[in-house]
């Protein structure tokens, strides 16, 4: 088990490093030098060249990357080319927004998805088919479109929730929850559908196992077979599915943040990409990767812990 954890940690580190290199290269392929981006249109070529030299833009790529990596390791992701603010500080402010969004959506999807999937598998018949159809519809609905409909229904027609904006938790926990509600629900629609499918399939697979028959042959009550034994067996693939879904929802937050004007990481990616703010893009890609990889690692270890075969070895 310790060896397994060490291996996974190493792989997570490697993943982050690979993405860092990738992001670095992508950023260097962006049109326009940092000097040009920073000084904006109308700057003289001399001034641009001068700034580029200052930023080390003309150094060999390897030494530029080494410098970036050294700074990043100390928590310094550089400054924005557009307004000179510290990227680390900016992202630190934005991370909680996206984290609440993605975590909220993941939890909501997991709860709804597992409930729907288990119900479909356990009840069968007409209800199973109805849930199947409903879930199929949810999977096909674009999140941003669902979001607009929610805004129309709950913010425009009846102002239950605020349509846009984000209130930090420290300011008002209640408003924080209200401001998260619509974006979280929006994201969870698709997520819940995916998890419902995964759960249904895993539950059916579990119920096909022969030990279920042994349990019945020893007069185990139906609820116990379903919710203790079958669900326990199905929990491995379900948790793996939830881990995968978290990655998707983290990405989906880009759209939710745009739609609901939330100052999160997704918004940062979107603006820094549109403004060609190279260090900001690089920083946010790496931070997003770190978060996703870390959460995945935790969920993966959880899955392994659920599996007696791996736990024992």
């Amino acid at each position, binding site marked *: 088990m310790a060896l397994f954890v060490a291996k996974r940690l190493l792989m997570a580190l490697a993943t982050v490093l690979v993405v860092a290199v990738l992001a670095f290269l*992508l950023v260097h392929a962006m049109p326009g030098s940092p000097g040009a981006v920073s000084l904006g249109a109308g700057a003289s070529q001399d001034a641009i060249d001068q700034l580029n030299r200052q930023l080390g833009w003309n150094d060999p790529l390897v030494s530029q990357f080494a410098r970036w990596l050294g700074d990043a390791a100390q928590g310094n992701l550089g400054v924005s080319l557009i307004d000179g603010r510290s990227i680390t500080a900016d992202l630190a402010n934005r991370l909680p927004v996206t984290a609440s969004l993605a975590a909220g959506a993941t939890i909501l999807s997991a709860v709804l998805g597992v409930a729907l999937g288990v119900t479909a598998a356990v*009840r069968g018949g007409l209800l199973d088919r109805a849930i199947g159809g409903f879930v199929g519809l949810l999977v096909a609905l674009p999140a*941003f479109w669902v979001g607009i*409909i929610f805004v129309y229904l709950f913010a425009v027609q009846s102002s239950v929730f605020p349509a846009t904006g984000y209130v930090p938790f420290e300011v008002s926990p209640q408003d924080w929850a209200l401001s998260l509600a619509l974006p979280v629900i929006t994201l969870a629609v698709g997520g819940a559908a995916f998890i419902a499918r995964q759960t249904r399939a895993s539950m059916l697979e579990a119920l096909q196992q022969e030990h279920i028959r042994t349990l019945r042959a020893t007069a185990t009550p139906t609820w116990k077979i379903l919710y203790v034994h079958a669900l326990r067996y199905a929990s491995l693939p379900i948790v793996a599915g939830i881990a995968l879904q978290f990655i998707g929802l983290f990405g989906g937050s880009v759209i939710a943040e745009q739609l609901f004007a939330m100052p999160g990481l997704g918004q940062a990616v979107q603006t820094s990409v549109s403004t060609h703010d190279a260090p900001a893009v690089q920083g946010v890609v790496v931070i997003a990767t770190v978060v996703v990889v870390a959460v995945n690692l935790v969920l993966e270890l959880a899955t392994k812990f659920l599996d007696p075969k791996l736990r024992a070895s």
Partner: protein
Amino acid sequence: MPRPGRAALTRLSRHRLLGSPGAVAGLVWLAALVIASLTAPLWLPFKTEDQDFTAVLSGPTAAHWLGTDELGRDILSRIFAAAAGTLGTSMITVIVGVGLGTILAMLAAGAGERTETAISRVTEVMMSLPGTVIILAVIGAVGTNIPLVMAILGILMSAGIYRVILGQAKSLQSQLYVDAAKVDGLGPLGISVRHVLPGLANTVVVQAALIFAVGMLIQAGLAFIGFGPPIPQPSWGGMIQGASQHVYDAPWMMVPTGAVLALTVLSANAIGNALGKAPNAAAPHLPSAADRRQRAKAVAAIAAAARDAEETGDAGTDAGAKGTLSVRNLSVGVDNAGTGTGVQLVTGVSFDVEPGTVLGLVGESGCGKTMTALSLLGLLPSGVSATGGQILWNGRNLAATPDKDMQSVRGREIALISQEPMRALDPMFTVGYQLTATIRRLRGMGRSEARAEAHSLLEKVGIVDAGRILKTYPHQISGGMAQRVAVALALSGRPKLLVADEPTTALDVTVQAEILSLLRALVKDTGMSVVMVTHDLGVVADICDQVAVMYAGHVVENGRTAAILDNPRHPYTLALLAADPHANHADSMPERLATISGQVPQPKDWPAGCRFAARCQFAGSACLEPVPLLPSSAGDGLVRCVKADQLAIEGMDWLATDVPAGRLLPVSPVSSATPEPAPEQDSIVEKDLA
């Protein structure tokens, strides 16, 4: 697994596609969309950029069927103008993603473990990346070059496709015909393309349809956040983003585009799901609530039939002695909700098991032995139920007993041991938990008392270090040990009858003998009776007092074990004995073992006459009539063969394998045409036997 021929596959795909209304609708919608968008310039009422300032933000009107946007542009025209681009660029993702994923999977499957591990690692990393964020960074570098972005998206998605396809590619790669092709000198590339790829075709198409849908959604999402095709070119995501600016004043605007996008995604998903549907998944061992209701109806029907019989007075419900199991005329069939005429799997089975005796149910697989055995506990798989007859046990007809009442029988009165001990135990819980929970439930004991009982039960089934075994998980013990645990589990409710479904088949020979002697000892000590399902006549000779030989869903011969083994009357019993190395007495051991050519017919193919006729060496025209089960001339048993007496008198044996082909009767599937054996063939049989 037969090699999946390309033609057969296409047939299957077509069948599944056309069998699903959703998929058909999806195909129609996609085709209509493609045609409409390709011919758009010919019929669209407006150009995409035409602005109608008299109708800005209008709802549907006669002029603008789907309304207009904030610049007065016709939404219908823009939707269809954008369709070709959206569908086309999503195809890029499909081709790159599915293509790369498939190639990687075939490479990993064909090139050995090292390559597979390497590729799997890389794809794992790819799957754990925040794809959306990376795609946005790519857009930062290459701009909104949609085809290129969609191609890179395909690369990111290939990892997931690889994971889906790998298992299947590996199993195809390990097929015998692939080995044969290797021997013939076909290179790895040739094998992949000629033998593996065709087998993957269906999965690949399924993945393509699903990825197509995801590609469209992501592309629209990108356009929605401003990374779509350059303005003023229309795109679905861009149009929805435009609509989102007007939720307050023109909510209608988001409806048409969103609906078209959702419908298109839905279509692709429907096609993928219809193709990807597993043809026949295994039945769950715990039926769904809906299936249990279905089952309850079947049980109620049997109970009603039994009541009717009782009223008319011709019921044979003599409850029998206590502890005796009497199965009377039992039939088991596939549920058929609509017509009530599902295929029968077991028909007219009757037998008795006296207390303290062992009955063997013998036959090849597919003869209905296991179905018969499981019906004793009411544990038939989902979709199958007892359809008639009686299972009389302690004055109750178990065939007509509702599931909730069976709970008091299962484990406490009748227990089950299954074939594969490893799979019969729950891999997620320790042996100790499974045993103590069962003991507490069945015996109403407290926790510590049950724990002690579990310990002593394990010792009783011959486990020396019971304390250690209690703490282990099933995967940590050997198969023989697991079967002992399974026996202990079955004993925990002190049952009077044990149903053992091939309890030794999956075990090593030495372990088999141990388990058999354990069972024999248990019968002697506890006085319980056993119904032993087996295909092994050695097991029968070893432990059974009575035997019922089953073929194609009914009993063809039964009686005392000694009588059956020494004086078999039914040709199928003869054949089984001739084919079994252990059942032959050492002195009469033939030089060559006989085989029974052909296979047990499928239940739907059972002929009206003797069900064994297609494989019987002695079949004649008299065998085409239904054959009753009649008293056998040997002992007090019964036999179902028109020639039983004749064969006994002539002392004929089932002949060993290399019987000249002409001597065997045609083994044509019994269902097709009449299996009328030609007279001269019949006489050949007689002559050769003489």
